[in-house]
């Protein structure tokens, strides 16, 4: 990963304002940002390790542990709630066997909250491994559970 970070900075720039793009690139590559990589990131952009750590922990998107093999991002915001989102959230947690905001012990699936996907007239909505799904009901949840079991 140190090599990846160094090469990225050479290609895309080594200034501080490149920090978020670099963190996105690392997470895209590895799925998460390990604390062990912080010194290399700091060195590549010539900023302090504390700075890097502060940024990683500020933003909800960045994770410091490996993600589940599948990630279900379920919208919890108001417009989806108006369409029965809370009941779907409870049912999803039960069906997938994992609490909201957690990764299942076997690492198969993570259920994560997201606050609005901009699909607010057709909720409840989710991103299943990045694929948008709308109007989620009990039947749709069954399909999602099957999909992430694979």
């Amino acid at each position, binding site marked *: 990963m140190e090599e990846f970070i160094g090469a990225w900075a050479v290609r895309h720039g080594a*200034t*501080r*304002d*490149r*920090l*978020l*793009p670099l*963190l*996105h690139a690392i997470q895209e590559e590895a799925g998460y940002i390990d604390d062990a990589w912080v010194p290399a990131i700091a060195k590549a*952009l010539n*900023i302090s390790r504390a*700075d890097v750590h*502060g*940024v990683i922990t*500020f*933003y*909800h*998107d*960045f994770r410091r542990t490996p993600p589940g093999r599948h990630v279900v991002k379920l919208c919890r*915001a*108001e*417009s*989806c*709630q*108006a*369409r029965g989102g809370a009941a779907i959230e409870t049912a999803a947690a039960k069906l997938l066997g994992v609490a909201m905001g957690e990764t299942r012990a076997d690492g198969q699936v993570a259920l994560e909250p*997201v*606050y*609005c*996907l*901009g*699909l*607010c*007239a*057709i*909720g409840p*909505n989710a*991103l299943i491994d*990045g694929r*948008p*799904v*709308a*109007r989620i009901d009990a039947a749709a949840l069954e399909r999602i559970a099957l999909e992430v079991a694979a």
Partner: protein
Amino acid sequence: MKVFVSRDMASVALGANDVARAFAEAGCDVVRTGSRGLFSIEPLVEVETKEGRIAFGPVGPGDVAAVLDGSHANRLGRIEHLLFFAGQQRFTFGRCGVIDPLSLDDYAAHGGWQGLGTARVMTPQQVVDAVKASGLRGRGGAGFPTGIKWQTVLDAPAGAKFIVCNADEGDSGTFADRMLMEGDPYCLIEGMAIAAHAVGAGHGHIYIRSEYPYCIATMRAAIQASAHLVAPFVLEVREGAGAYVCGEETALLDSIEGKRGQVRAKPPLPALQGLFGQPTVINNVLSLAAVPFIMVEGAEAYAAVGFGRSRGTMPVQLAGNVRHGGLYEIGFGITLGELVNEIGGGTASGRPVRAVQVGGPLGAYFPPSMFHLPFDYEAFAAAGGLIGHAGITVFDESVDMAHMARFAMEFCAAESCGKCTPCRIGSTRGVEIMDRIIGARDASVSVRPEPVEGLSSLADKGKASTGSVGTGEGYLNRALYSRSPDRIDVSIAAQTGLLRDLADTMKYGSLCALGGFTPYPVLSALDYFPEDFGAPAPIKEAAE
């Protein structure tokens, strides 16, 4: 045969990709467009005929033959003739859903780049004057006059200036920025290029939230394809990282600079010391995308539409439990009731509308008795609410308003940037208060008989502890457990008083609108729907 199918993220979520594939496999020439903006008819297919495009929707992948021979039951005819579209004034969204978003030929054929051409033969001051005369106000929420902002940046002496587009669109119930960027990205690029010419900026950033992957891809492709047309102005996309507060303009600037997205104290204004300390125009997507129209049709044409000091059109977003949800662009002044009941068709569930939240998570909840409100910045402010980014979230009678008030506090706690105490800590205390109110309501205990300490307000709390100073272990215990339900008055009346106190502190003691406006949804829920907070219901007005 040529057919048009949307590639908008909402359309795809409803199955548009499968539909498009089915038509392609049947030998059709499939053009992927943006969304027309009415989701109850999606996935939508439009077939090109001599009489214009004929729409069918919703359709599935198995409907190809019936659509192509015209026999499909969901034949809608010309989109423009549908009620939902006939009444709109699409100044900004005229091309969205019509053209191939990334086709430069389509864009040019539908009036694209004319605004930039017009602006380039004008002086920067003339462009700024035109934007001022149009009456355009910032569509991101605060409603600040765009022309005045641009004037400040134009007048600022500096080597480098920036244009920053705020595409963080974090409010629940809003999706207009997303639809425009996915459906007509060159319109935003043109608006930014005009802004760059007007203030003398060389570089532009578009900050897009990470929850919008389709947007990010479309904007990146559009920037690349149109680079030669806006040169020497250079544009780049910056991806957010899931922080709502980064929609606040100064937090957004810090985020672009590679820092934690914390709100900066103002002054200095971003217009004078913005990105990298340089003068910066920061505008919402819709503010910038309105500018090409103003250049082509003239400031007067834009200002001719509207209400009071709210000039031009607003792309209103109908969301939540609404029958005909989607994007409805119309001049200011239309009433809330017309939008929700006539255009939106009431709730999707068919049950009565109980509340609408206007303006996202920081906006007030209004009951139907407020449906006479005209869509206008000043009218909403006077009614204790805000238009914000013009999202309207509809709720039916099953909604628990105490739960929604709790959610507003929970959201504020999750998204607070942490800079000021009323927001960072107050929101968490707010969740706790709401839990007590909901708990007491559900237990149907309205008054606790003998609270250990009658802490009905913060003032009492101060007195109680002074009186106990020096009483040794008892004092320590009280201090340690002062928040435990056994030691505070958990009656609904006391907790409601505390909630109002807290809301007041947040409103006046917060640096930005996240902490400062969270009281809007909380207090409006409490004031309009007291019965959900365990208090008696208000007497219904006869007008209802």
